[in-house]
């Protein structure tokens, strides 16, 4: 069957042209600030080059071979980054959703509580990690003092390979005030009528949460999971503060971003660091893809679209 194309009106054509013009700045920005640098990172990763070498030397995929077969930090780095990101994402989404639901109720001093839970997000990271460092200190920290009072053995939260990642994840969860704000906005948009109707029918809190709140919130939860995953895969601050360069570094602090930074900017191997960052980029891309594919059937949009 032949399809007759409807000729767009002059008005529509004019609008389309205008839209294209308006898109030029964004397109230029993306091209020159994102796609071309990405491409050049990949090209650079095929060379051997320190910034202070006179000329880059083409070595094909040798940087990648070295990374996957010889590098003593790479696999540890992958492992700790992924575990940290998963713990942090699950932890901060659950925590933020719970706090947001509490803050969404009509309680006295709601504004104050909202501010209090948001504050950790805006405190400078340096201060946060220094203070948690003191709390976590094995010998003189408050948490260990409490453990001893309870008759438990001391725990090296920041120096025992069992505890490092969960301890760091807890700090990240504590600072997830931005997710709370987004959840609060989402909760405000869940129509009251459904809740009221369900309440009249005698539905428990849990039932209303599962059948009303959760479906309405699913796109926002998805957005927060995505945001949190991408941000937390790129974790670097705890490594810089607790490990740093030329300090004693426990392997659990070798997050991908830190490995990239240390390789490129402390150890001068810019092209090798490019290979690391390209692999890292692909990894984050894969995680995002899985998240998008996997969430297709569980997202609910009120308008019925998908």
């Amino acid at each position, binding site marked *: 069957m032949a399809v007759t194309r409807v000729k767009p009106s002059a008005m529509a054509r004019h609008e389309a042209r205008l839209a294209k013009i308006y898109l030029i700045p964004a397109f230029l920005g993306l091209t020159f600030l994102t796609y071309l640098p990405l491409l050049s990172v990949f090209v650079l990763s095929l060379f051997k080059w320190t910034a202070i070498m006179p000329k880059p030397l083409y070595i094909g995929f040798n940087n990648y071979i070295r990374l996957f077969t010889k590098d003593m930090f790479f696999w540890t780095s992958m492992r700790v980054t992924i575990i940290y990101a998963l713990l942090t994402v699950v932890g901060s989404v659950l925590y933020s959703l719970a706090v947001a639901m509490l803050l969404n109720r009509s309680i006295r001093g709601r504004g104050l509580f909202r501010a209090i839970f948001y504050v950790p997000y805006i405190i400078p990271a340096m201060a946060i990690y220094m203070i948690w460092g003191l709390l976590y200190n094995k010998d003189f920290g408050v948490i260990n003092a409490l453990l001893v009072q309870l008759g438990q053995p001391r725990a090296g939260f920041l120096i025992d390979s069992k505890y490092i990642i969960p301890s760091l994840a807890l700090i990240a969860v504590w600072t997830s005030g931005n997710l709370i704000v987004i959840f609060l906005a989402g909760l405000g948009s869940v129509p009251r009528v459904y809740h009221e109707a369900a309440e009249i029918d005698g539905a428990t809190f849990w039932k209303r949460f599962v059948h009303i709140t959760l479906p309405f919130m699913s796109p926002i939860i998805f957005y927060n999971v995505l945001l949190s995953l991408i941000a937390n895969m790129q974790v670097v601050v705890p490594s810089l503060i607790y490990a740093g360069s030329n300090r004693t570094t426990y392997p659990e602090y070798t997050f991908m971003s830190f490995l990239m930074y240390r390789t490129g*900017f402390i150890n001068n191997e810019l092209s090798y660091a490019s290979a690391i960052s390209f692999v890292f980029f692909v990894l984050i891309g894969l995680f995002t893809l899985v998240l998008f594919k996997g969430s297709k059937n569980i997202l609910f949009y009120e308008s019925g679209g998908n």
Partner: protein
Amino acid sequence: MKGIRNILALALAAVLLLSTLGLAAFANERVTITYSMWGDNEEVRVLQETIDKFEQEQDRIHVEIVQIDRADYVGTLNTRAVGNNLPDTGIMAEDAVLMWAEQGMLADVSNMYGEGEAKPLDSLAFTFDGKPVGYSVANEVLLLYYDRQAFVEAGVTPPPAKAEEAWDWDTFVDIAKQMTLDVNGNNAKSPDFDPNNIKRYGVMLCPDFWQLEVWSVSNGGAWYDAEGNVTIGEPAAMEALQRIADLYLVHHVAPQYGTNTATNVDQDLVNKSTAMYVNGQWSVGVWLGPAKNSDGLDYGVGVLPYMKDKVTLNTGGVNVAFATSKHPAEAMEWLKWYAREENAWGLIEGGIWMPVLSSYYTDEALTRKWVENPNFPPYDEYKTAVVDYAFNNAKPTSWYWVNNTNLFNDALSSILAPAWSGNTTVAEAITAHLDQLKAANQGN
């Protein structure tokens, strides 16, 4: 309209012409060179005063400061190298000097000092291919600081200030046990001692990883031989590091190595969370002197305990001239002038830097000029524990002649993590990963 344009164009051309002429005239008289440094605004202010003095003494060279954050220092220089925008001269991180020398980025400074001129100590020259590529701007050695009051209260002899009286390792561990207290006031030699509830440790070690090398050297071993080959797999080098791990694991006189993540030597001594602390001489100027003045900290300084040889390590940030400089002669003239003690006196007097010229170690008048000031411990103590110790017992840290020490230290530090917590021994950890350490030493 056209008239205005013509006038504008003419004016622009005139400005361009004049500024070019002006620059040319200026360049004939005076050369501007740049000097990059890390440090806070206070250090920039002190340096600017020094530069003003330099410019008063001569009028051919003008020096401009390039201030770079310490944490990003080498990274920033890298970026500038890519942009072909390196400064003429600058201070350089110790662990990056040989890498830059290997790439031909540093000027050969072997002719900087003429025959018979007062030169820095030999141990302070960074060498590549047998040629000096830079001298440390300051000397620094590792020392044993202690809380004098704590030793008086415990009735225990404090660390000796003379190298010849240095404690052997067993004596040191024994003293550290006497100075380690649990929350009930029992020391680590008491049968009632509770290692799970320690109030004050006998000793803490600065977590700057490179400092650990001193113990291997003290035990008659080394991390590298004279040619820069890895020798850390030999028993003496590994045994020394196991002894460090055992301070925590066996004797309970120190926290697990690398743990004091949020504190510094002054805080730990002021808070009385340790009786002794191993760290570099700069601690006097950066932390201990200020803590003495503000918190009344009565600290003392002694020589390190020894295993086989009475030895400490020396190091110090390096002043280099970059090979890309268009004014190498002027660059070296500035560096040489700046290296003279009187021109960095603020830092020396404050206790942050030790002098580099040997006369300050051998001529008592000069030593007194340097040491007799309120930031320092008493003269007699500092003279033998620091001045004589640095002159007679110091060996250079390996980055004075070995490349890729940063890669090696990253690897070793990671490899040893399970040894500090007792999940493996130092010897097992190093032996199992010796190939990786050797690869790191080769830059891979």
